[in-house]
Every structure is written in C-alpha cells, then in structure tokens.
C-alpha cells in the first residue's frame, strides 16, 4: 500500500491477544493474558508465543506497555503491563466487524450459540 493505513490487519492469534488485553484492563500482562486465552478459547499457548506477539503488536504501535512494581510472588521481578493504543482499538474494531459481517447469518449452520 502506498499510503499509511490508520489501522493494521490482524492475524487470528493477534486478535486473541488484543481481546485478552482489552478484557483484563489494568491487569493485562503476559501470564494473565495467557491464562485468559486458555480459559476462554481452550488454546493452551506457551508464554513465549504470547510475548512474541505482544512485542510484535507493540512494534506495530497497537499496544503500549509499562513496567510495574516487583512482587514477592514473582521472586522480586516486575510485571510488564499492556494496554491498547487508539490504533490498536481501531484495528481490533475493524477485525471484529469484519468477522461479524462475514459470519452474519451462519450461526445456525456453523452450530455456534
């Protein structure tokens, strides 16, 4: 594309990660996102996959991150928290709309809900 798009196209796993961040709000960090994806989608992904994706999404400026305080539960290590940027929110909205639009009317055929 010769112009800079306002939003970015998202892969399937990227969408799951972004939804995870959105759902967890202030508590969005690697392990929590991993557990959220596992609990809701049943995909037992590894922590490295989550971090690789988080990093890529941050590289695309869809996420921003900050580092929290160290806790004893983590052996004195800090958490890296993530939140959606406006571009990230817009991209996720677009991807979700695309799926909704494409899936419209197929609920019964695909046996969902």
């Amino acid at each position, binding site marked *: 594309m010769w112009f800079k798009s306002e939003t970015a196209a998202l892969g399937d796993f990227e969408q799951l990660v972004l939804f995870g961040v959105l759902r967890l709000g202030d508590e969005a960090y690697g392990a929590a996102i991993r557990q959220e994806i596992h609990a809701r989608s049943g995909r037992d992904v590894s*922590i490295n996959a989550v971090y*690789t994706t988080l*990093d890529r999404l941050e590289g695309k400026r869809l996420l921003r991150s900050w580092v929290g305080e160290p806790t004893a539960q983590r052996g004195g*290590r*800090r*958490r890296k928290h993530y939140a959606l940027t406006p571009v990230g929110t817009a991209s996720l909205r677009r991807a979700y709309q695309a799926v909704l639009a494409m899936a419209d009317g197929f609920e019964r055929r695909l046996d969902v809900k």
Partner: protein
Amino acid sequence: MMPQPPRLAWQLLARRVPAPWREFVLGDLEEEFRARAETDPPSARRWFWRQALRCAIHPPRTAQAYPYSTFSPGDFWMRTLIGDIRYGVRVLRRSPSFALAVIVVFALGIGANTAIFSIVNTVLLRPLPFQDSDRLVRLFHVPPQSTFPGLKTFSISPANFLDWQRRARSFDGMAMYQFREFALTGSGGAESILAAAVGKGFFDIVGTKPALGRTFLPEEDDPAHGHAAILSDAFWRSHFGAAPDIVGRTLTLDGRRYDIVGVMPPKFSNRAWSATGRDIWVPLAQTDEQKAVRDNHNLQAIARLRPGVTVAQASAEMQAISRQLEAEYPKEDAGWGATVISLRELIVGDIRLSLVMLLSAVALVLLIACANVGNLLFARALARRKEIAIRSALGAARRRVLAQLLVETLLLAGAGGALGLLLAKQALSAGATLLADQVPRADELTMDWRVVSFVVGLSLLTGILAGAFPAFRAGRTDLNETLKEGGRHDSAVGVRTRRVLIVCEVALSVVLLMGASLMIRTLANLRNVDAGFDPHGVLAMRVSLATSRFHSGGQMFDSLDHTLAELRALPGVQAAGAIDDLPVTGGSVQPIVLEGHPELLPSDQPTVNVRTIRPGYLATMRIPVVRGRDIVDSDDNVMLVSRATAKLLWGSEDPIGRRVSLPLQSKSTMMQVIGIVGDVKQSDLTMPVDPTVYEVTRESLTDALAKGSAGSFGVAVVLRSTVPPLSVAQSAVAAVHRVDPTSPVDDVKTMDAILDDTTTAQRFSATLLGAFAGLALILASVGIYSVLSYIVRGRSREIGIRTALGASASAVVRMVIVEGMTPAALGIVVGAAAALLSARLLEKLVFGVSASDPLTLALVTGSLAAVALLASLVPAYRATRVDPIAVLRA
C-alpha cells in the same frame, strides 16, 4: 516457605530467554507456578517444566533484537539439533524392538553405575552433617609398639588428655567422651539404652545446637552436681511421643534420677559416628581422683582444629607434647605417643577401597554394555547404508550424517539414563536396610544434584562411546558401491570391527569375573576360618546388670550364676555360661605381670586379652581345656590361659600353678593359673589368634563397683541348645527376667549371626561384584551370539557354495565356531593379563587367597571359554541348515 520452581528448568529458561524479556517471562512463569503449586505441587512442577522446554526450543523473539530475516549462529545450530532429534525419534519409532533393547541395556549399565555412585557420593564426597565438619578430628594415643604390635591408635587416659588440653595450640577446643549403657526403668519393664558421657564443651566442638532446651552447663560436669541428660530425636519420639514440654521432666537410669535438659535435632543422630548414634547423652562428670589417672586408657576424644591448621600440623604438635609428657611421667607415659585423625577419615576410610573397587567394576559393566550397543548400532548403521548414501549423494556433509547418527544414539542413551536413574532409585530404596549394616552413613543416602549430573554426564558419554564408532564407520561408506549394490546384504561388512568389540567384551568380563570369584572365595574362606570355638547351636544375648544394685562383685556373680542355673534348666538347653565380651567382637587388652618378675614400664610389659567368665562358658562354646581343669562356681582369683598366652609368657615351662597379676585392675590381687585352654580369635577373623586369659575374680569387680563408675555391667550370656537356638530365645529371656526383672536383655542373636556380622563388608562386595559379573557374562554371550549370527547370515552364500561342493556339516560347524572362538580366545588372554594387573587393587580386600590366584584365573577363563562356545553353537547349527539351492538361486 514459598514453593520454588524446579531449579534446572529455571536455569534453562534464564539461559534461553533473551535478556530484554527475561525478567517478565521468568516472573510470569514463577507467579503462575506459585498459584498452581498451592493446589497441586507435582503437577505445577510438570507444568513449569513443559513451559520451560517450550520456551527453550522457541524462545520469545523481540522484533527489535532479532529481525526476522536473520538467525544467530546459535539459533541455527539449535534448529538443526531439534531437526535431528525429531528425525531420530521418527526413525527409532519405526524399529521399537531395537530401541527397546538398546534402552534396556543402557538402563542396566547406567542404573548400576548410578546406584554405586550415589553411595560413593554420600559416603565419600558429601561432608559429614556437622558444622565445618572438615575441622573435626579425633585424638588418640599411639601405644608402644613393643606391647601392642600393629596397633596404631589407642583410647586415651584422662590425665594425659587434660595436659594435652592445657598445652596444645592447634585446636579451638577438645572434649573427652565415653560410651555407657544404662538400664532405663520406670515405665513397665527394664530396657537397655545406649548413652555417651561427654566432657565439657562436647556439643560446642561438634557444632550442633539442640532442637529443644539447652546443652550441658559447665557446672553440670561435676559429680557433686545433680544428673542431667540430653535425648536424641529418635529416643524423644519413641519414648515421649515427641512431647514438646519434655525439658524439665525426669528419667530413671540405673535407679538414679536424671533431669532432661534438651533434645538434639535428628541430623545429629548420625549412626556413622558412635558418639552421636546414641539414645541419650549425660555429662562425663569425673571425680578429681578419676581425672588424675594416667595409666588407664579408656576414654575417647574429639577436637576441632583452629581454622587454617592442618591435621599434619596438629599431629606434629601432639607428638611434641607427648614427648614432653614421656619425660615428665616416664613410669606411666614411656612409649605412648599421640596422633590426630580427621573424623571423616575414621568413618569412611575403611570402605573407601571397597567402593573404589565397586565403582571400577560397575564402570567395566557399562563398557561392556557400550560394546554391545555399539555392536547393535553398527549392524543397524550398515543396514542403513543406502539411506546414508542417498543423503550424502543429495549433498549432506559427512559431518551432518555423523551428527544425525550420533543424535540417535544420544536419544537412546538419554532414555536409558532416565530409566537407569529410576532403576537406581528403586534399587537403593529396596536395598536400604541391607546397606545400613554394611556401609557407614547409609542412613544419609539420598540422590542430589551431583547424582543427577552424574547420570546426565554418563548418558552423554555412553551415547558418544557406543555411537561414535559405528557412526564414523557408516559415514565412510563408499557412495558408488553402496548405491550399485542395490540393498543386497549378502556380504558381511565390518566383521573386523565387530570382532574387536567381542575381544573387548570378553576381556572386560574376565576381569569382572575374576574379581567376583576372588570375593566369593574370600567370603568362603572367612566362613571356614577356625575361630577356636563352635558357633553352631549357640544363642547369645546381652544382659545389662545395673551396677548400683550390687554392693560387691560376689553378689553380682551370685545373681548371674542364679540366672545361668535357670537357663540350664530350660528344655533343650545343654549348657550355659557368661563372658564380658564375646569372641570376634573385641574387648579389654591389659598388661600382665608374672609373680616373681619385676613390674616393667608399661611400654615393655607383655599384654593379653582379658576376659571375665562364669562357669559353663567353655563347655557352651566348646573351647577345649588342653591341660588342667575348667573353673567351677566356688573358684575365686583363678585364671585360665590360652595356648598362645602360655607360649608367650612361659615358653616351654608349665604355667599351671603359677601366679600372675593384672596391674590395671589390682596390683595386689594374685591369680593362680589352673588350666590351659584352646586359642580363640577375639578381635577379628582375619587376624591371628590373640593371647587371652580368662579370669575369675570377685575382688576387682568389687573395686570397680566401689569406684562408682556409673552405668551398667554388660555380660554376654551364651547357651547351647539341642534345638534351633532362636526357638529357645523367648523362654531364655523370660528366665533372665525371673531372676532379675530390672535387667534389660538385648542383642539376642545366634553365634552364627554374630560371626556373619563380622563379614558384612566382604559379603557386600561379593554380592555386588557377583551381580555385576553375571550381568557382564550375559551381555558378553549375547554379544558373541549376535555377531556370529550376523556373520553366518552374511556368509550364507559362501556356506551354501561350500555345502554344494561337498563340505560336511561338521566342517561348517567347525568353521563358524572357529570364527566365534578366535576373538573370544584373544579376549580371554587380554582379560587375564588385565586381571593380573588389577590384582593390586584387590590384594587388600581378599583373605586366604592371592588376588592373582592361578586356580581362580583358570576357572574364570575356562568358564568364559565355555560360555563363548555355547553362544557360538546356535549360529553354527543354523549354518548347517543353510539350503545351498535356495542360496544359489537368490
């Protein structure tokens, strides 16, 4: 304490996860691990491992640090390795029986090595469980060699110890201690308990704090003070149900009240050192009179070296002090030196040689296992020549082909190692009780990181050892020839290589079998040693008489004689007697003075084993009276001497009617010799007979009682029965208690079992070496069999042609057998030479047989030749069944 994630997995992660991510990934995993560990720790550990491995294989990448287009060289290497591993797993899955065979052989070899290494690790490598245990030393006298030939260490005397304590500068502290036995009464029947009486500062020197209460105060080391006691953890649990309010309660020992002031932690009760392997500890509390004794050596001493001082330096200082004391007290101290030996050396020194021998033996088993697996792999590599040739033709570098084959072997070795670790763990826990009697520190036996790294290292080494040669050989395949051959396997390739493997296997087996046979013969020799008495049908038990209950030795003997009479009246009992220390268990050694001879300096005085007996002992043990008569109940101040004593003291003169004294007991009491009896081994079956005197005197005992040396007087009561000895044990104990219900009875054993106990070390070595040799023999015969089968299959065409041309079946059989026996014979020769070279290691462990005994060697080589022949027979028979027509048509 918070649960910790598995360390190894954690370290793997820390290495593999790139620096910018490390903190967050590790933190996340640790946090989730903790949450999971709260409900199910084992599954949390498994989960952590899974996550760690996934991260290690595909670490998270950062867009900034690693642009997608390039891999680091390490990454490439890792990917190749992972590819090889995946391919290897697929290949091995296709031939599960081959994989299983190799894994089992590896598991046996690695498992045996791991088990022995775990023992070595615990016994020899790990420090003793005391604070700065390397600085703990024991102090000993070195006795005058003219009186105690061959004895390097001796108990110490109180007065000398106190002088050492005042003068020596090499130590942070030193303390005396002494073993005691008490009769515990109060709740129900009497019980004999083991105690140590410890001098001032003992617990500080050992460096262990009590788990409850306190250790002894300095003022408690005083006979005028009340009695205090510290309990062991086990005793506290077994006798007080681990009551938390134990401190301040009391115990009744030998009829006296003791205040409990503390409980030691469980790790302090180390059975390897007798001073800590006790039920209770009490203060030594010597009187001034006892402290002044210089010529009676009946105490032990422990000391802690000052930091930076070596054992040799401390020993030198102690020798210098001893020389001063010799000059100051020539009468008592002439000829008595001193020495310092590290506590650890004393505990594990004796077993070191056996363990090193076993570790070498088990390493040989692993080498044989490697040769066997090498053989299998070699056959497989040859069968896969075509696959390898195709890969090479498509441009695979030789290095890559080699790496692929090696990775396959390493996979097998890794699986074998894991299985071996489990086997070793099982074997050790199954054999724990057996080990406890045979190896010091066996109660500390656990597997730690050293054992795990040993297994990992050994598996790698084994894989490389077994896999490198076949892989190398297969990688050298001639492409052109192999592809042309088109997969026909009608020539035996690599026969020479495999013959070399047979030579190695047979040679190693000879060495192992030789060692095992020597140890078994040693054991047999020890069992056949004439100890000077007849142990069969004799029951022995230890009866502890509380000294506080008797006013004189005579009274104590009367009580004992009454007990013996009760025992003799039992059905099935032929004879009964008593002695203070049983044969082969050691006992008192004292100088002896003949009447009319001047008392010499202690260093020049002849010494003999001194035993106190009651009538019936000789008859029970069937020790012959050579001249004179046996003792009777009414005898007092008489003595029986053994043949060796008669010869030592009187030469060719007749000792009967002579009078002697034992100055350590009483200088004035003279005892008359009334008989000469047969010699008995008092200390050890492997040593020559000890000159012994058997005394019957009431006076010396009365003196001992009057001196009030606290504790019990333990006597061994023996009885000979016409029925199996253990069947009368219960009624015998009951008979003892009828006479004296407060005397504890323990160590009820047959005399045969007591003799067996003295050969545990040899039995341990013989059992394990026998097992290893058996394993080696099986592996070697399987090796010969498989190689010969392979050769016969490879040469079936040739054999078919020979048969067609008129070769007889016997000629074919002979040909195959010669094929198999040639490398076996070479192996036997090499092995015999190696066995003779390694004889030096065994020389100190064998008894009654030379480590290079020609008869044993002949037997071993003969039996190996027979096994090799047997292993050749099946392939030879198969060769005669080759159908010439079928072979020629193919």
